[in-house]
């Protein structure tokens, strides 16, 4: 799912516009699997699959695989529909530069929810 984010986001100006000023690399952890997403002016330039050795990232968003699977349902169940819903229960953790994460929170929510469009 997560590898398809560039095509989903980059063809959707309604998402790109919220990240127009973002130029960052951040980590998303899906269980044990790590990914680095690089954003250039709101476009997701690359999604790179780990493992990584000494790579830098601005912030990390980590959750278990089954949490992401519930999050990426076409219509997620209550409590699985938003990053902060997971945060309240401790099912997701944020690390690194929280200031940047909060500055682009709306964009990040839209980017990370984009794979729902691929769900059956």
């Amino acid at each position, binding site marked *: 799912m997560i590898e398809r984010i560039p095509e989903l986001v980059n063809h959707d100006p309604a998402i790109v516009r919220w990240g127009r000023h973002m130029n960052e690399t951040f980590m998303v952890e899906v269980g044990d699997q790590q990914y680095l997403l690089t954003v250039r002016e709101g476009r997701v330039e690359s999604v790179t699959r780990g493992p990584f050795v000494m790579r830098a990232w601005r912030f990390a968003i980590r959750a278990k695989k089954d949490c992401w699977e519930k999050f990426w349902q076409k219509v997620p169940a209550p*409590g699985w529909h938003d990053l*902060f819903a997971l945060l309240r229960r401790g099912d997701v953790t944020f690390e690194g530069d929280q200031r940047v994460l909060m*500055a682009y929170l709306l964009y990040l929510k839209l980017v990370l929810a984009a794979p729902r469009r691929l769900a059956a």
Partner: protein
Amino acid sequence: MSARIESVTGRYAHVDLDGRPHRIYFEEAGQGIPLLCLHTAGSDARQFRAVLNDPAITQHFRVVAFDMPWHGKSSPPAGWEKEDYRLTTATYTGQIMTVARELGLERPVVMGCSIGGRIVLDLVLKHAKALRALIGLQSAAYVERYYESAWLNHAEVHGGQACGAIAYGLMSPLSPEGHRWETVWHYMQGGPGVFTGDLFFYQVEGDIRERIGAIDTAICPLYMLTGEYDYSASPKDTEAAAARIKGAKVTIMKGLGHFPMSENPDAFLGYLRPVLEEIRATAR
């Protein structure tokens, strides 16, 4: 003239709150039993646009929704530039009772959402005899901090966008896009630090868990309506509060989130109308 003009009117009232003069904006429609509506933290009375425009309600109720000071078109009091805004139980209760009195709302029904859903629990403890009935939307006795609200008022984070992002997630994915983004817009228009200041009441000072057992719904009926997609004041939180209040009537609203009246007006009105009908038929 061909524009469709709503029967809602918007006016300003001059009242003293906490000993300081305020110019308070309020919207009003309908006649009958006074129904005072309280918006959520960091937003304004536009959230109640559908309630104010529902003929089924306005034919029996005088619906009034005001913008709290610092919110919407109610400016902060003179001198605001020298202080941090922080909402407290005493200030919030004072606003509601003063606005009700000064606008001549006699024994109103009070309906509040989120922080408004919290304060109605306090109102029923202190002012039950002065009120006809209370409707708490997304009511919880307490919500602990689960994110750092200081980021919502930080020079290196766009407060409007960050507040909008918080509100966006609290809604149901099933609610209509247009109404969801309208609700986000209200949040994006909030003044700097205002949402954070409201959250001080919601997540710190306004903890009412110790006191809700004393609520007497025999004097003033209490209805609690909560959307199932709300993770801030979740159905579980509402049910936990209601379990300690004898006579509280709980409805879990399917497919709705934290802003039922604004994110999906049609679905919400379907839940609200029967409650108002019951109040009209039974409340003293």
